[in-house]
């Protein structure tokens, strides 16, 4: 799997989901992203991600429902004297919140193949030559991330046994300071090791250059087709936008825009065959 092809597909998903206000197309993109990721990474590995996405989408929905007191269909009302949350609660605000939640969810799932399906060196190899050193530095620092969590557990346990007790935010300095210092020291040691292996010498090469294969090109083509078709439909006035306010209406659908979204299901087949 080529990281550039994955990037093209992710970008197409993000483009449509952020370009349109129509929740039907957003939902289609979300479905394409979930189906593709399930095909490539498997549902088990997605479980934590999906839980997170549902929670974030629910939070986005709730936030709009509570804060946007607009719309004609009032479901219930809290006294306006209550600061921040007082006022009418409307069906339109709920629908707009749901649409926002789907947007956030689709964006997260569309970007997830980079963490769930690609190794850090795959991503680095896909970067243009000018960014290869930055990429190597990022790949190296990502390797340190798990050690920070382990360090926090170890430091808090060691300090607790030495008599430390959490008593307000300032007391946490005894844990946070060693964790931060240890992380900085780890980074410096890693940088020293990279320097000792010639990092920063100039342009880099790669052990296994990752060329775009036939199925990668197909994915790039499907992603491009999705964007072009959607843009064309929008320019022609077929891909109608959707506004929940002042009164809720059903989103309009057209065949070309649906077809554009369906192109984004292309990885379901290619990523499953790679497995």
């Amino acid at each position, binding site marked *: 799997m080529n990281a550039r092809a994955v990037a093209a597909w992710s970008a197409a998903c993000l483009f449509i989901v952020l370009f349109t206000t129509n929740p039907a197309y957003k939902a289609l993109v979300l479905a394409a992203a979930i189906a593709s990721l399930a095909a490539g990474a498997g549902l088990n590995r997605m479980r934590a991600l999906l839980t997170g996405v549902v929670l974030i989408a629910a939070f986005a929905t709730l936030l709009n429902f509570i804060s946007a007191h607009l719309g004609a269909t009032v479901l219930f009302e809290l006294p306006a004297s209550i600061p921040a949350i007082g006022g009418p609660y409307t069906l339109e605000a709920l629908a707009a919140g749901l649409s926002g939640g789907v947007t956030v969810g689709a964006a997260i799932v569309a970007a997830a193949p980079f963490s769930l399906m690609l190794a*850090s060196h795959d991503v680095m190899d896909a970067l243009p030559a000018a960014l290869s050193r930055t990429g*190597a530095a990022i790949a190296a620092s990502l390797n340190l991330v798990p050690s920070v969590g382990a360090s926090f557990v170890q430091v808090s346990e060691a300090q*607790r046994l030495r008599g430390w007790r959490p008593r307000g935010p300032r007391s946490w300095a005894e844990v946070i300071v060693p964790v931060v*210092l240890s992380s900085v020291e780890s980074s410096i040691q890693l940088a020293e090791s990279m*320097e000792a292996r010639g990092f920063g*010498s100039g342009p880099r*090469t790669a052990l296994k250059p990752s060329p775009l294969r036939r199925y990668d090109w197909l994915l790039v083509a499907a992603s491009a087709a999705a964007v072009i078709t959607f843009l064309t439909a929008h320019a022609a006035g077929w891909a109608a936008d959707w506004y929940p306010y002042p009164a809720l209406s059903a989103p309009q659908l057209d065949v070309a825009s649906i077809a554009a979204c369906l192109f984004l299901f292309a990885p379901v087949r290619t990523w499953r065959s790679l497995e």
Partner: protein
Amino acid sequence: MAIARISHLSYWYPGAEEPALRDVSLLIEAGLTVVSGPSGGGKSTLLRVLNGLVPHFHGGRIAGGAEVEGLDVVSTPTRRLARAVGFVFQDPELQTVYDVVDREVAFGLENIAFPPREMAARVEEALHAAGVDHLAGRSVRTLSGGERQRVALASALAMRPRLVVLDEPTSQLDPEGASMVLDAVRRLVEQGRAAVIAEHRLERLLAHASTSFVVEHGWVSASWPDPGPPAIRSVSSRQGPVAWSLAGVTAGFGGRVVLDSIDAVGHQAEVVALSGPNGGGKTTLLRLIAGALSPMTGKIERRPGRIAYLPQNPTALLHRPTLRAEVSLTLERAGESEPPEAILSELGLLAVAGRYPRDLSCGERQRAALAAVLPGRPSLVLLDEPTRGMDAAARTALIALVSRLRDGGSAIVLATHDSELRSALADRVLMVSAGGVVESESHSVPA
């Protein structure tokens, strides 16, 4: 012919008044060169001169000259010297850039824009030279410490350097991992390469060494290391009442059982050593006794009193501006009136009492962490790999300190791979392995 030549070199770290290296002159030739000396004496600094990390990475002030493979170290950047000198660091986890073994070994070659078509063969050659061909394609995270360190060695060898420098490469490893690395180094030398190694476990290397330097207080002398007097066995003359006990305890993490239905007991004025392979459950057992980990089932009891716990990573403790302040913090919390200088003197740290603990060398840090947890009169002392990175003198000081605490009535539990420490101190040895704990008859059990 000399591969490296250092002439009248002195070096000061940034802001330091005293030099870390003083008027060093030496030649390094083909074969194995062993560098030894006490912790904080300047071994790591000397090794870093050989690939230019000192002064290019660390900054500071340098006087005199150094040349490696005809390259002037002071004027040649480290990234250029990397082609002539391979370097392996102490901690295998902190020198890994990629998450797959062959990519990791290729990192240096990628940096110097080595032709991709020839790279795979070069990686294969380096993996073979380090004895880890079978690990190609494996995720680095799944490797043991010894395997990781040999991958680091392969990464250094991939550049085909004339000189390979190893800075205490086994200090973080168990005996099996250390053997793997030292055997690989020995093979390299037999293949005709030059290697410089700083190491505390010298017994396996000295027979193969062609040269030896001792580094102490920044002075370097061409002499063979003094192994020091053998540790004197110090056992308990009296055994007190039960200090801690575990009955039918099962424990683990994330649903994984590490220790299964174990029973164990320790007494006041007794040293119990925990032995066994890495991952066998020694640290888990220590954490259970300390009360840092709750058992899934079973019962743990301990006598009331202060617990002194040294974790595997000594830097987990150190955060005060001076070493003296670290010790004072523990004493204040324990409500003890002992002056901090007492334990600092006992561990040979009085001279660095006013220094920032994280600026100390690896071995000194380990002693600093011991000083931070052991002052006063703890009733239960739990030490996880206390001799990691320690030289012979520091180990002798630790043995004396632990003996004093035990004679004062403390119950002591050591998790250690160090057979010398075990032989010197342990009243009893518990083998912790494969989820079980068994009392060992012998003190010289394999770690």
